[in-house]
């Protein structure tokens, strides 16, 4: 069964450093998303991406964040200058966007900013 994959599973970085979180969505999906989950809290929407551009972004997704689909398979989230409060699980998700609403989530990347 096809699945969303994410790398790395755990990323530790120092405050102020740049990080890139990587995702490989399900191959025939057209919509891509990033969510985050701070420990013990609910999953929060960050950004949606379709047709090589951002469809929608939340208030969390400020100028420090960017997304990119550099090729036909990868989808990345970059945090330019990490802050302590960026520590969270980051989930990538994808959906077909053609009638089906279900989003399939990856296993997540745990980002720890020290």
């Amino acid at each position, binding site marked *: 069964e096809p699945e*969303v994959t994410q790398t790395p599973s755990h990323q530790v970085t120092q405050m102020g450093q740049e990080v890139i979180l990587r995702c490989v969505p399900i191959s025939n999906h057209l919509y891509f998303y990033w969510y985050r989950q701070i420990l013990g809290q609910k999953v929060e929407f960050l950004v949606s991406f379709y047709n090589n551009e951002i469809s929608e972004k939340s208030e969390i997704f400020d100028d420090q964040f960017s997304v990119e689909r550099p090729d036909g398979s990868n989808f990345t989230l970059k945090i330019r200058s990490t802050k302590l409060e960026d520590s969270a699980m980051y*989930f990538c998700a994808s959906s077909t966007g053609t009638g089906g609403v279900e989003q399939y989530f990856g296993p997540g990347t745990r980002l720890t900013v020290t």
Partner: protein
Amino acid sequence: GESVGLHLPTLSVQEGDNSIINCAYSNSASDYFIWYKQESGKGPQFIIDIRSNMDKRQGQRVTVLLNKTVKHLSLQIAATQPGDSAVYFCAEGYAGGTSYGKLTFGQGTILTVHP
């Protein structure tokens, strides 16, 4: 503002019992709702969805009920098994305009199934 919340943060049941997990939502414009299961250390796993033009949908051992009058959503799990132990989230979405796909999640309910 828009929000999705859960009535019960924890639910403990015996194996074989039926479980009911509840969720309240506030955005009447949402046109679909999804239940996700999240096991420790894993991403949310899709369980079942329901469109706003439906009031009931059944899957394998699960049933989702939608009451738009009171903005309430529930997930019923029949014959609950220890493998069902997880955190369950409801999420709402709106498939229109530029908001296609954005999901707003609730806080989650911890389901514990005792053998």
